[in-house]
């Protein structure tokens, strides 16, 4: 997005810090390539959040055929999240990366986000049921290229 001019070049420093901290290795959460794209089972995590009244889940459609899931962070959840960050600052990484992901996604609808994902060859060429390969080498090369241009 920096290359396309959609984000400020200052974000290159963020990318560089991600590489410097070893996040591509230490914070790797591989996801499976499944029928509709990247997949991870989040039902248990959501149930945990729901059971403690931190989020609300709304389903559109019927029990037999759910057309859409919507997840809402409740006021209680936001409060508990702030408390957690105060108690364990080391968990702020998740907040920061969630904010960064939201920045990258912007107001782009989900289907279009999927299209952007499928533009990555590693994503599209991954076999069903296998973990999607990392794009860290290409990202590092692109960072070096953009930094050289700057």
């Amino acid at each position, binding site marked *: 997005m920096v290359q396309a001019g959609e984000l400020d070049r200052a974000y290159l420093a963020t990318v560089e810090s991600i590489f410097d901290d*070893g996040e591509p*290795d*230490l*914070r790797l959460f591989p996801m499976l390539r499944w029928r509709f794209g990247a997949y991870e089972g989040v039902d248990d995590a*959501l*149930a*945990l959040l*729901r*059971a*403690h*009244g931190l989020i609300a889940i709304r389903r559109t459609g019927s029990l037999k055929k759910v057309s859409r899931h919507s997840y809402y962070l409740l006021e209680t959840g936001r409060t*508990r999240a702030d408390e*957690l960050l105060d*108690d*364990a600052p*080391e*968990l702020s990484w998740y907040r920061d990366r969630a904010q960064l992901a939201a920045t990258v996604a912007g107001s782009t609808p989900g289907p279009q986000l999927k299209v952007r994902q499928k533009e990555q060859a590693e994503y599209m060429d991954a076999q069903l049921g296998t973990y999607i390969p990392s794009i860290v080498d290409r990202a590092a090369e692109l960072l070096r290229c953009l930094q050289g241009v700057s």
Partner: protein
Amino acid sequence: MSKTNQSNGWIESVASRAAVTADEVAAVLREWRIDPSASYPAPKHLHLTHIRFSGTRPEEVTPNPGSFEFSWEGLAPGIWALASEINSAGKTSVLEIVMWALRGDPKNLAADVRKWLQRVDVGFELNGTAHRVAYAVADGRPFGELQRMTDSGVETAVFAFETADEFEEQMSSFMVGELGLHTLRSWNSTNEEPIEHGWNALTGALYITRRQSSSLLGELVMAGLAGRLLQVFLGVPWTQTVYNARAARESAKARSARARAKGADPTRRKALAEKLSELQRERDEASVGTGSLVSDTAAAFARMNAANHRYSDAQDLVRRRTSELAVAKLAVREFKQELIDRSETALAERFFQGLHPTLCPRCDTHIDEQRRSREDTHHECSVCRSHVDITVAMSIEDDEEGNDDPLSLSELRAQLGGAEAAVERAQAAVDEALGARDVAREAATTARAEVEEAEAGHGVIAKVQELNVRIARLEGAIGEIDSVSESIADSVAEADTAYNVLSAAYHEADARLKDARGDLFDDLNRLATQIVDDHVELPRDDHRNSPSVSGGVDHR
């Protein structure tokens, strides 16, 4: 004429003249085929008996084209004349045809007459025996045979011929043998080679042509040939020996000169020796300082090879250390990952264990306080009513129980510290290996430069080697000259001895010839005066000159 010449004492006389042994004289005379011709030969007789020939003149020949035929029978010893009222009637042709038949060589027969002829038949009596040479002529080429009449009157073939060369060769051999003649040898000083005069040359004494010539005998005016021919036909003893010895002497003289010419050319040898000295000086100057060049180059090569090996080993060490560093970094990463995972999990567990569920995540049923209190009193999960024993850890460091991993977080951190220290050590090892590699590379580069510098000196060695090759060649050439000189010297000595003996043989034979000839030429001179009108003078003592003709009278 004296008739007392004999061959006794011939070898000894020659040996005495040459101041050599009789064996040496005999060997030389045998090698050069010089035989004593001391005896008077028996007289031989040859005269014509008939002359016949025929042919056809082409139409374009005038006058008298068409066939012709000539026949002259009944010839016998005596003087005969062939005359005509007009010139160019063919008188000369008749005689030339006769000579062709006797000699086997048409020689001076006009080419057109030769082509007209179709048949020739000449009869002659040789030492009382009738002979006949008859042949057909086709386009100038003779093919026929020589026949001899036996005592019983039967003609038998002596030899046949089908070409001009066969005719001449066989006729020459026959006549020389039947007349007891020998070939005469003379020396051609122009070509420096001996010439043998056989029957063809001897027939010059049979036929005196009308061509203007200062010589009455022989076809050529050369070196007293006619006089020699006269003596041959007269059977003067020692004639053949004199002329053969003379020709052999000249041949030996030429052989000696050639041998000397082949001999060591002092000028050439001197030039080669000077060139050799020059090259040796040049080689010695170039060789200065090259004594250790080869060994120095070999040592430089050895150092370069060792430096290359060390550089290669240093590169291998860098690769190993780099690989070890990567392994150490991987271990650090794994420890960090586990540490993050376990600490965050512990934080999350502590967080959620501190919360109370408020509703069922499946059906959204509210969980009241009563159900919630049973967790503390009855250890019953407020969500699913399963037995539960929740202990809220005060800190993640206290989370020891229920943890299947044998390592605690503190222990894990200690492990991580150790792994990070290992990375530092591995990095230091890599840096050290890189430094050593750079040093080894520099050393290999320096060693290579030393080798190149040493190899540059090999140009001098190559030059010295080239000079040695040239020196060896010159030494070989000089050695060959010296070797040849020895054999040449032997050849010269041998030729000189032959010349000495042959010269002595010539002088001895000549003395005997003169003694045998006596007043022969005086007798001939008187005889000639009686026959011809003009005065014919024969030199009394110089047998080299031909009888001369004063006046312009034809003699046939």
